[in-house]
Each structure stands twice: as structure tokens, then as C-alpha cells.
């Protein structure tokens, strides 16, 4: 993986996070931070994938970085942490896996038996991957709270 490829990944994931931050009506003065969050999580995951980690583990690590960086930014801006973690997590969301699963399921209705097994396997794999990546994403984002901000529940 070259440095220019890494920089390109960082740039485009920042643009993606920025677009979704605007779609989600993020307070204006946090926009740059949201772009930074998007670039951090995605680039870290890209590096780890390149080193041969599975996508689930790489997502967990990337999301944990987002969680901790988000907690720092939330303190700096005096804002809830979701403002930073949601746009940061968007480039890591397994959206493509999710609707590939659905497309696979829909295609099962009009194929012959031989293809069916293949499509079913692919749809199932994609579905399980979607679930695992999402679980890794949520656990990573929640990591600072789960590890360091433990409190007796108030509600």
C-alpha cells in the first residue's frame, strides 16, 4: 500500500463523512472534526486490512479509534459524542454487504437449482458479515464508555 493510496483513502473517506454529516444536520462548527473522524476510522481500517487482518477485526480497531477520538472531541466541543462518532462510522457501515444480502435473497426466486446453492451461500455469508461488522462497529464506538466511564445505571 503506497502513501499516495493511503492519502487518497483518507481524502475520500473524509468527503464521504462530510456529506453524511451535512445530511444528518450536524452543528456547523463540528464539520471539520466529523471529516477528520471519517478519515481516521476508514484509513486505519484500510491499513489493517492491507496487513491481512479480517474485515471484522479491522473494523473493530477502526471503530475503537473513532470511539476514543470522538470522546476527546466531545469533551473539547461540549457536545454529545454521537455528533462525532456517527459521521465517523458512516464510511465503515457495511451498507454494500447489507443490500447484497437482500439482492441475493431476491434473486433466489428466479434461478435454477444449481445457481440457487451458490446464491444462497453468498447471501448468507454477506448477511453474517453485515451482522458481525455492525457488532464490531458498535462495540468499538462504545469502547471508551464500556471500559472507562462505568457508572451505576441512573435509570
Amino acid at each position: 500500500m503506497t502513501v499516495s493510496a493511503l492519502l487518497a483513502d483518507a481524502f475520500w473517506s473524509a468527503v464521504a463523512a462530510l456529506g453524511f454529516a451535512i445530511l444528518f444536520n450536524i452543528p456547523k462548527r463540528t464539520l471539520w472534526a466529523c471529516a477528520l473522524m471519517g478519515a481516521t476510522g476508514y484509513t486505519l481500517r484500510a491499513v489493517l486490512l492491507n496487513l491481512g487482518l479480517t474485515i471484522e477485526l479491522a473494523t473493530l480497531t477502526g471503530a475503537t479509534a473513532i470511539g476514543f477520538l470522538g470522546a476527546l472531541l466531545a469533551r473539547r466541543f461540549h457536545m454529545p459524542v454521537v455528533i462525532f462518532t456517527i459521521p465517523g462510522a458512516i464510511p465503515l457501515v457495511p451498507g454494500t454487504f447489507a443490500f447484497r444480502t437482500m439482492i441475493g435473497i431476491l434473486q433466489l426466486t428466479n434461478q435454477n437449482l444449481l445457481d440457487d446453492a451458490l446464491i444462497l451461500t453468498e447471501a448468507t455469508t454477506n448477511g453474517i458479515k453485515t451482522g458481525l461488522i455492525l457488532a464490531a462497529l458498535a462495540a468499538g464506538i462504545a469502547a471508551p464508555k464500556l471500559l472507562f466511564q462505568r457508572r451505576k445505571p441512573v435509570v
Partner: protein
Amino acid sequence: MTHNHPKPPLAYNELRDVIDLSLWAGQMLLQHGAASQRVEETIHHLGTGLGCDWIDILVSPNVIIVTTSSGQEFRTKLRRVVRFGVNLWVVTAVNDLSRRVTAGQMDRHQVRQALAEIDQEPLQYNRWLTVVMVGLACAAFSRLFAGDWPVFGITFLAAAVAMFVRQELSRRHFNPNLVVIIVAFIAGLIASNAALFRLSLTPNTALISAVLLLVPGVPLINAADDLLKGHLIMGIARGVTGLIVSLAIALGLLLAMRLLGVSGL
């Protein structure tokens, strides 16, 4: 919480105000994309900050139920919650409000005023800026998926038009799932041109990237967060919402591809 300095008991009508305001704040959070834990904690802080002794909260997919108690008195109320788009500005504003209430800086009347103002606040960004930036975001994804420049251009066009259609349909209060199918269909029609006119070596990247503006990222992340923190019903409901939206995207996209005879994804 220490009980050495008990709060003065609230009158019955004061309890009514507290329950109203905490329900209102909770409804805004839930409608605009906050996770269940945050909704419950904010309602709790707001209600106890406004003077009641304790609050019990039930957050469920379509309704919030709250019981406030003070001294011997208690009141219970429920409020319907419908699904809105994600709006993190509202989440920030309500969170800030509850922080000020907890610090003792606001009374009931000021809270009511502030909540009404949050409700009236227009979106922070011009709709055309949103159209362009969402188009760019999807086009950026096509770069991340190793698409070439023609794919980048087509994805931008498809996603921007799709976002515009989404705004128009949502404004006319169409069923949200129907909106997703139609918008995915339109994005698919435009993005298919990459394959139809052989504009690129990786034409299918445009199809995948152009519908990413519809991906239910926030419901899915919140679903996992809710499940992780023990809000099982909410987690399952949000997960199912995410599944249905994904299905709607696939339906719209497949429909467009079949219509134009584009294959492979």
C-alpha cells in the same frame, strides 16, 4: 443520590409540567436518531433536574412511557413517537438543554420555551448544498471502491438527483419505505448508464455507490448499540427497520437494472 436533603415535594400540576417536558425532550431525541440509552438518561436528568424525586422510563419503538414521582404523588403519561430523519443538531440542542437544567440554570417555563425553539429551528444547511454534498459523498465512496473517474461522475449525478427526489417525496409525506424504493430505482436508472454506454471498465461500482445515500447507517448502528446495552426490543425493532430499508434499496435497484437489462453486481 443522597437522601439527606430531600427535594421539596412538587404540586400535582408541577408534576404534570415535568412529565410533559421530559416526554417532549425524549420524543425529540428518539425521533431524530439518538440511541435508547441516551434517550433514557436525558429524560431522567431533565425530570430530576426539574425537581421530581425519581423517573421511570420505558422507551419502545413507537412510544415513550414515563412515570414521575415526587413525595407521595406520581403521574404517568405516554407519548407516541413516529420515525423521522436523522437530525443530530436537535440531539445536540436537547442534550445541551438537559445539561443546563441539571446545573440548575433553567426552570420549567424556560425549558418549555427552549424546546419550542428547538422544534422550530430550520435545518442548518441549504437543501441544494445537501444535494451536492450527498452526491459528492456517494461519488467519494465510488473512489473508495476503486471506481474510475467516469464512474465518479455518474455516481455524483445519480446520487445528487436521487437526493433531490428524496427531499421532494419526503416533503409530500410519502411512506418512507416507498420513498426508498423509488429513490433507489431512480439512482439505479441513472447509474446504469455507465454499463449501458460502456463508459467505464468497472460500471457496477456506480450502481452500488449511487444508492449509498439510502443505507440505514444510523438505525443499524443504533440497533447494535441498543442490543449491546440491553435494550433488546429497541435493538430488534431498529435492526428490522434497517433490514426493511436494505430490502427496499435492493428492490428499487434490481427493478432499474431489470428494466434496462443491466446485469451483474
